[in-house]
């Protein structure tokens, strides 16, 4: 990663040069989102390699959640390019279509279906035909049951599988939501603050979980918890006022004068 430490990589324009790489899974260039004159994203450029684990940090209002909204089709950018898997233009698709392309999202506030049991939440997320008739006639087969069982094992909720997910603790809901992404078998996972509200022990376990997943998938994690970001040991992108301020290893960005200024509010 030594080349990432070079100063020119701190500017958005320099990153756009990676466009040519055949391994690019997600490509954002010059993305701007304006809400009533306020630029939530301002010419944001970001490139994710296939199989990469990336963390995105930045002060409140830096545009982290808006960036996820743009990638998942919740918000349409006013300008800019958003490409998935080389050529799919995400700005033309809606949330369902993007989810079916293989992009999954965990929300900042854990959102599970509280009136359904833990296992039923996973059942709904299970990779399968999403049409109404298929859903009406769906019966779990042995392989799907095994997938639910193994996912429950991975997220440590086997014991609570029949309980309503509304009764889970905050941390367990976060895990269930990560489990829903897993069983959906998505290529790109967007995790918005996956350890918010977790105890230190839970945070460490989550870091382990994410690292184990990162071997098979591309993951983008937005997080505030610097200890957690350090645990992940991945490339860090710092957002500020809707564009990339710095990019590199955690030590590199923490040593960056402008990052320090932004975080200390100078």
């Amino acid at each position, binding site marked *: 990663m030594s080349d990432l430490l070079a100063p020119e990589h701190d500017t958005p324009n320099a990153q756009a040069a990676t466009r040519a790489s055949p391994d690019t899974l997600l490509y954002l260039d010059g993305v701007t989102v304006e809400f009533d004159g306020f630029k939530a994203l301002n010419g944001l450029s970001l490139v994710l390699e296939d199989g990469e684990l990336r963390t995105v940090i930045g002060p409140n209002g830096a545009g982290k959640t808006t960036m996820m909204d743009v990638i998942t089709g919740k918000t349409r950018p006013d300008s800019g390019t958003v490409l998935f898997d080389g050529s799919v233009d995400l700005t033309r698709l809606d949330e*369902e279509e993007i989810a079916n392309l293989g992009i999954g999202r965990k929300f900042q506030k854990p959102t599970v*279906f*509280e009136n359904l*049991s833990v*296992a039923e939440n996973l059942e709904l997320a299970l990779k399968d035909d999403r049409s*109404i008739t298929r859903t009406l*006639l769906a019966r779990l087969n042995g392989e799907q049951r095994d997938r639910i069982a193994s996912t429950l094992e991975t997220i440590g909720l086997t014991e609570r599988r029949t309980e309503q997910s509304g009764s889970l603790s905050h941390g367990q809901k976060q895990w269930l939501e990560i489990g829903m992404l897993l069983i*959906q078998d998505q290529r790109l996972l967007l995790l918005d603050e996956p350890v918010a509200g977790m105890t230190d022990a839970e945070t460490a376990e989550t870091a382990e979980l994410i690292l184990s997943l990162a071997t098979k998938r591309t993951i983008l994690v937005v997080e505030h918890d610097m200890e957690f970001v350090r645990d992940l040991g991945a490339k860090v992108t710092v957002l500020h006022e809707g564009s990339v301020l710095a990019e590199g290893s955690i030590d590199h960005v923490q040593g960056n004068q402008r990052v320090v200024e932004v975080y200390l509010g100078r």
Partner: protein
Amino acid sequence: MDAPLLLDRRGWLAFLVILAAAIVLIPLLVLLPPAGSAFRVPDYLVPLLGKYACYAILALGLDLVWGYAGILSLGHGAFFALGGYCMGMYLMRQIGTRGVYGNPNLPDFMVFLNWQELPWTWWGFSSFPFAVVMALAVPGLLALVFGWFAFRSRVTGVYLSIITQAMTYALLLAFFRNEMGFGGNNGLTDFKDVLGFEIRAPSTRIGLYILTVACLAAAFLLCRWITRSKLGRLLLAVRDAEGRVRFLGYSVTRAKLFVFTLSAVLAGLAGALYVPQVGIINPSEFSPANSIEIAIWVAVGGRGTLVGAILGALVINLAKTWLTGAAPELWLFVLGALFILVTLAMPDGILGLARRWRLPRRAPVAVVEEAPHV
């Protein structure tokens, strides 16, 4: 993997047994005991009970969209009335030359308006199968088109409720107009027979009653099958966190359209069964207050339970029949008070109350299991 339904297997089987008993017993008690016997059910009760069963089908449909998918439609009375009008048109065509004017081609009200020929909207309605298909298809199609615009634009919550009210109100005004060709203010009435059976004959009434209760049982089984399927769990997910469902890759619009349309078809069926039993259909069935009343039945019985919707429709309409006889001026106050009471004191309706009484005997197990994790 059971959704949190209120009734276990025994409960809903018992419910079906009650329906089956209602099909067999009531007609027997009308026909067999000698006049004057304490067991004899009076004739006039048969169409009344049949009417309640129609309301129960209607409530079942509303529970499917409101209780499960979270779509509070306050326009279901319109789908009911449209189904009713389709059946009413068939019944009007059956009158033939027995009308006051004796015109073989035109219903009385058209002769009265000096119309020369049957409007195209009435074509085909002398056929019973056609009328039945239309009674289901017209409400279904309206729901499909209306729902497509509403759900695609992501109109939800109270805004959706308001536009459904507007829809039924618009239809109310339209059907009041004589030019529409549906009998205007007076609607359709003076029916003579249905499928060749005299409509007022006790045997016809018993037949209609049995058919209605059988339809209610079938509608219940259909709704139960849907709500217990994976689609049923998807509907609950849509109700609780619509936005999240989209990110799982499901089309919320299509899920809502499916359930809304099916629900309108059930309402149309209820309306079609209702008209031959009460003998009239007029524009007042479109009145917004009617649609609100359906929501009250479901709320009182217990949303998202199916059985609760049926129970609510029966209980409220029994109370209405009794009270509008005993103290007519009180009914609307009682209905309003009931709604406030249910909203404040028993949000899960009668079934929720029943469950609260039943739970203490079963609860300790769950509490002990949960305690270490809390």
